[in-house]
């Protein structure tokens, strides 16, 4: 029921100008770099798609890519059900709800490097309490040397950091479900599980879509926390895609490679996000499509 009015562009213009400054210029720069070979001090040479080929054939990239995919899907697998479960269990409207919301919000409000630092200190063999805890159980926990420990610590850190986002989104979504639906399900004799399946979940669909999209996009770009916790190691166990990108761009001065990688990186996120988006909004009937 929108009014057709091309003057609406005036409203959008301010936002567009700011975004253009921030998006187009770097975008053009990146495209340029990706098609050239740049060495400091020398004029750039046009190399066509060579950079892209280099990236796609590079083992460092390939391994990191697969690792990243695995990580993002693992994250989603843990954080979404956990987030929904916690949201369902949260008390509504009481001092307990307020306290819970604040505690939930805290991990989200900590600068990402502080998150990394907190977990580093928390898990370091000489500083942290976690190794003590595991040693008491008889397990020799070492986040710096043991690949399994490092990988799972990163996963747990992300779960700690980001599950509250899912919880908060679902909490709000749950609050929007009118009581009558639960009452009807009760009257219809539905078990808790069936109520969840046929009443709760369908009505959480739009909230979960946002949550899943955000988590996928952000986890695929993860950098700071991981860097501070493990530095990418031991070896390449926790070297995800952003790590590779930063190394090439900032450390190695391989701008061509970095630019090509950036474009591939962006493209992958775009495609997978779009796929998620289609699947999630198609199943939800009656939602607005944008």
């Amino acid at each position, binding site marked *: 029921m*929108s*009014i*057709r*009015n*091309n003057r*609406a*562009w005036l*409203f*959008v213009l*301010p*936002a*567009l100008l*700011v*975004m253009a*400054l*921030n*998006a187009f*210029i770097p975008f053009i720069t990146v495209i340029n770099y990706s098609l050239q070979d740049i060495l400091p001090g020398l004029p750039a040479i046009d190399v066509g798609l060579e950079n892209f080929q280099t990236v796609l054939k590079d083992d460092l990239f390939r391994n990191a890519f697969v690792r990243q995919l695995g990580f993002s899907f693992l994250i989603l697998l843990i954080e979404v059900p956990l987030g929904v479960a*916690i949201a369902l*269990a949260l008390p509504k409207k009481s001092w307990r709800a307020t306290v819970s*919301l*604040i505690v939930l919000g*805290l*991990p*989200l*409000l*900590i*600068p*990402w*490097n*502080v998150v990394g*630092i907190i977990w580093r200190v*928390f898990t370091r063999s000489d*500083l942290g*309490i976690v190794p*003590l805890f595991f040693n008491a159980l008889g397990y020799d926990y070492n986040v710096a040397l043991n690949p399994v420990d490092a990988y799972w610590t990163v996963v747990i850190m992300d779960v700690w950091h980001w599950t*509250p986002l899912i919880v*908060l989104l679902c*909490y*709000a*979504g749950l*609050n*929007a479900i009118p009581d009558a639906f639960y009452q009807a399900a009760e009257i219809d004799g539905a078990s*808790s599980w069936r109520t969840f399946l046929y009443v709760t979940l369908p009505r959480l669909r739009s909230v979960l879509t946002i949550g899943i999209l955000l988590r996928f*996009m952000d986890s695929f*770009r993860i*950098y*700071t926390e991981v860097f501070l916790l493990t530095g990418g190691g031991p070896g390449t166990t926790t070297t995800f895609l*952003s790590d590779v990108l930063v190394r090439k*761009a*900032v450390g190695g001065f391989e*701008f061509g490679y*970095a630019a090509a990688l*950036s474009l591939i*990186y*962006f493209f992958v*996120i*775009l495609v997978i996000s779009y796929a998620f988006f289609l699947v999630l909004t198609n199943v939800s009937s009656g939602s*607005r499509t*944008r």
Partner: protein
Amino acid sequence: MKPRRLWVNVLMIVYFLFLAAPLAWMLSMSFKTNAEILTTRSLLPQQPTTANYEEIFTEPFWRESFINSLSYVLLNTVITLAVSVPAAYAFSRFSFTGDNHLFFWLLTNRMAPEAVFLLPYFQLYSAIKLFDTPYAVALAHTLFSIPLAIWILEGFMSGIPREIDETAFIDGYSFFGFFRKIFLPLIGPGIGVAAFFSFLFSWVELLMARTLTGVNAKPIAVTLSRSLGAEGWDWGVIAAAGVLMIIPGAILIYFVRNYLAKGFALGRV
């Protein structure tokens, strides 16, 4: 107590302990001396000290850093809201050539990895002489906060029936009058939520904040790294700084908590 109720409570307690544990550890660390941190491991400080906090409050560069952080975060929030509100209004009330595409393009900006922008932004903001000012960081951050703000605000605005706009115009309100006196109060929760996310993102972001600042506008997140003393990292001070950095966020959540719960429900979610 029914068995299911018991399990639920256990889950909640475990989860909240899980959330609180690292924070508690950091809080405890902030009251310990470096010597104690490196030698003993106990939950409560054996020899509690406020030296770490004192250092932060007395050393000018900590205070400056804090102000630096706060300034670009606030700048970002203000700029984001200023341009997102009209844009969201346009998306919600009108259809115009290319509107769907534009909307989707806005969202795609959140998909690019930050590292991509480091070098281009460095060059860009140096060129326009905004390097090492809060403006550079604020503007750089808007790339990510504007799309989200528009997304959120559009959802809220679409929840307000168009009849309200029409009635106001019939009643003789000018457009700006209508906007200021009628519309904005109605979407208050939406603005609250959008502001919350803009603030949040800007406050926690590090990479661009570090890249685009030199000496003058260095934010606190970067100053933390500065605390590299002779023995290694100055853990106590870092922990204290970390604790202090959580506080603005906690306050913010407290103020918007009602909007958060109500807000998401009303919005496009």
